[in-house]
């Protein structure tokens, strides 16, 4: 596999212009100062209770995501390009979901195979032909982007259900501002803290027509044992909206209310951080206590907006991903700005054959997997793992896709041995309101802290960095 593109040093060893000041600063700052700041950051994170739970671990159920104090820098030009591409992609995704639950033109045109929709476990027949306010399905998307060269950006994955991590984007910036004011003074870094304002504006813009002038927005959380609970409460706090659990809500005459100390209050928009399956026990899992009985009926009656809409998962499966270039062209009549990683669909015999012959050099992913689980990175995998995936692929090829192992870009990272390049990706958060699409400059940069590793997920030993988009 090729040597990755380093975002600080170009191939010729020269420091790229965006990194000139930082590189100079890194050369002069003593390592123990960096180490001290790193520990300070950790203390702040811990004190603020910014932790996440790792499923399947009983020991310490609350852990910190490692935070790397060296920022990643993107130029205004790079960002402008990304923002245009992300906006286009999210519009296309919304159009696709709308189509899937209404006219299904894309299926009839034979562009996306029908079984990818109908056989998909997250396809929600309950949504067939049901209107949603303003035909808006996808309000909050996390689009994972990787880079392999000066101008080479690829979308790795679209997250269209309940993408998380945005609180880290915001807190990372907060902490960097506290720890390195002198660095900010020497860079024109575009702010990200307006994200929560933009989110609130987006959510209010999709309120049902029956809502009053200033619609009531709430965040619906599964509760404190959810791994992203910190984020749910963080966002509620910054937006000044109530953080509710299922039991705080009830439905009467198709209107949703929350229980307050002053009696019932009407709710118009629910930013839900609960999966479809648990939203309404009358329609989905009957034994779920996380949801609200009758919510779907209020939803279908057009009395409440659920964001993201129910059933948006049909757009973030990895098999659908491989059709994204065609999806963009179909709905928008435009060439896609952001490229897809070339993808083999193992459901197609030709592709499967190719994949099986190249297992040790490629990446295989479960179509419905997420969070770095259920995937195999060929060059890093043991013989046993490769054979395991070979068997899986032969048994159930439609459950997998495969991609060439990309030489992800690297960024300077503070690790035990000092400052060294580590692989990164980027998850920008795209807000798609009725009025317009909003993308705050930056996103969450995830970094694979282990040398050579390409897996950036926090559940697999990944960390995060602050992402700076330079204003000029």
């Amino acid at each position, binding site marked *: 596999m090729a040597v990755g593109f380093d975002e600080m040093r170009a191939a010729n060893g020269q420091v790229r212009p965006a990194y000139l000041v930082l590189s100079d600063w890194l050369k002069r700052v003593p390592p123990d100062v960096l180490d001290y700041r790193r520990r300070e950051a950790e203390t702040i994170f811990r*004190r603020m209770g910014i932790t996440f739970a790792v499923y399947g671990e009983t020991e310490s159920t609350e852990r910190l995501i490692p935070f790397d104090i060296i920022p990643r820098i993107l130029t205004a030009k790079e960002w402008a390009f990304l923002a245009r591409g992300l906006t286009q992609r999210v519009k296309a995704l919304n159009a696709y979901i709308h189509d899937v639950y209404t006219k299904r033109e894309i299926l009839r045109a034979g562009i996306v195979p029908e079984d990818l929709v109908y056989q998909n476990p997250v396809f929600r027949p309950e949504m067939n032909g049901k209107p949603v306010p303003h035909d808006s399905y996808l309000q909050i998307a996390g689009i994972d982007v990787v880079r392999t060269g000066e101008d080479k950006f690829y979308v790795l994955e679209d997250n269209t259900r309940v993408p998380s991590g945005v609180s880290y984007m915001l807190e990372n910036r907060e902490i960097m501002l506290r720890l390195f004011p002198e660095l900010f003074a020497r860079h024109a870094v575009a702010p990200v803290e307006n994200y929560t304002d933009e989110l609130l504006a987006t959510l209010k813009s999709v309120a049902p027509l029956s809502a009053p002038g200033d619609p009531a927005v709430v965040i619906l959380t599964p509760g404190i044992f959810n791994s992203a609970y910190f984020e749910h*409460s963080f966002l509620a706090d910054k937006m000044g909206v*109530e953080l509710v*659990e299922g039991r*705080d809500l009830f439905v009467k005459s198709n209107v949703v209310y929350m*229980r*307050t*100390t002053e009696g019932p209050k009407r709710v118009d928009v629910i930013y839900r951080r609960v999966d479809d399956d648990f939203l309404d026990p009358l329609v989905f899992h009957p034994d779920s206590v996380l949801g609200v009985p009758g919510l779907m009926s209020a939803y279908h009656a057009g009395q409440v907006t659920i964001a993201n809409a129910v059933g948006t998962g049909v757009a973030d499966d990895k098999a659908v991903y491989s059709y994204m270039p065609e999806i963009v062209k179909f709905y928008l009549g435009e060439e896609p700005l952001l490229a897809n990683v070339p993808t083999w669909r193992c459901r197609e015999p030709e592709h499967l054959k190719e994949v099986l012959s190249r297992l040790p050099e490629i990446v295989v992913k479960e179509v419905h997997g997420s969070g770095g689980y259920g995937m195999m990175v060929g060059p890093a995998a043991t013989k046993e793992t490769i054979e395991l995936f070979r068997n899986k692929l032969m048994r159930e090829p439609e459950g997998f896709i495969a991609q060439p192992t990309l030489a992800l870009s690297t960024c300077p990272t503070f690790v035990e041995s000092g400052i060294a390049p580590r692989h990164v990706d980027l998850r920008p958060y795209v807000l798609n309101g009725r009025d317009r699409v909003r993308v705050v400059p930056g996103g969450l940069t995830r970094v694979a802290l282990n040398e050579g590793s390409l897996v950036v997920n926090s559940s697999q030993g990944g960390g995060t960095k602050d992402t700076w988009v330079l204003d000029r």
Partner: protein
Amino acid sequence: MLSRTAANLYWLSRSMERAECLARILDATNRLTSLPQADSETNEWDSAIATAACAEAFRLNYEIANEQTVTEFLAFSPYNPSSILNCIETARQNARAVRTALTVEMWDAINGAWHELKRFENRRLNRDDFSRFLTFVKDASLAYDGSAYRTMLRNDGYWFSRLGILVERADATARILDVKYHVLLPEKERVGGQIDYFQWASILRSVSALTSYYWVYKESVKPWLVADLLIRNPQMPRSLASCYENLTRYLDDLAQFYGRQGHSQRLARAMLTKLSNTTMDEIFQGGLHEFIQSFIAENNRLGNAITEQYLT
């Protein structure tokens, strides 16, 4: 405000207050049992369990009450839902559930206490360690209380957190008084001996009122004056009268804020009236034990009324 948020604030404060009460009971008991005359027929450890109102749960887990079993049960037992350990655990869970309704300072106080607690868990503590542990619990409660007092907006959230503390505190004071009076006033009523003095002093100490006693009454410790201080004296922050003065006040604040009076306001006001209109003579005539038992029942009723009116 969400009812659940209010409930979490209420129970968070109740749990922290309860942890502190338990620490005080254990502290006082430790002192009493280290006296040289401690060979009396009463078992101080039994009375600690009775004061903490968990005799039944204790008997399910242990045969006899002694320093080791009672300390373990009241302080660290995971099987006692209101051990100090569980109180702080519950408080933090409530706090996490309403993280946004707390100020940073309050969260720091609770989260810090919870992390600190880990240092004492699963470790055999000698008496010195244990006394440090009790100090830590009292400090944690003070830090929580103080940070709430100094940093919270004076609105419904604050009032609910106060109500939790006061309902718990009234209950604790009543129980301490009840149990000790039972133990200390046998038929003969031979009051005034050395042991009695330390016993009474220990009651006062367990509600942090020994010094206050001297300031108020300016004489040696007398049982009826102790009862007077803890029941009727509104200057004494842990007295029943003071608790109800404040309960009435905060419930009135809530009623005004929401524009509606309810059952809990009426209950609190009735109790306040009763406490200020009844003399100690009348209380003793009807029987102190009976008086306190009826107080505890009324106090529970108020807790239920608050729950019904606001927290569900």
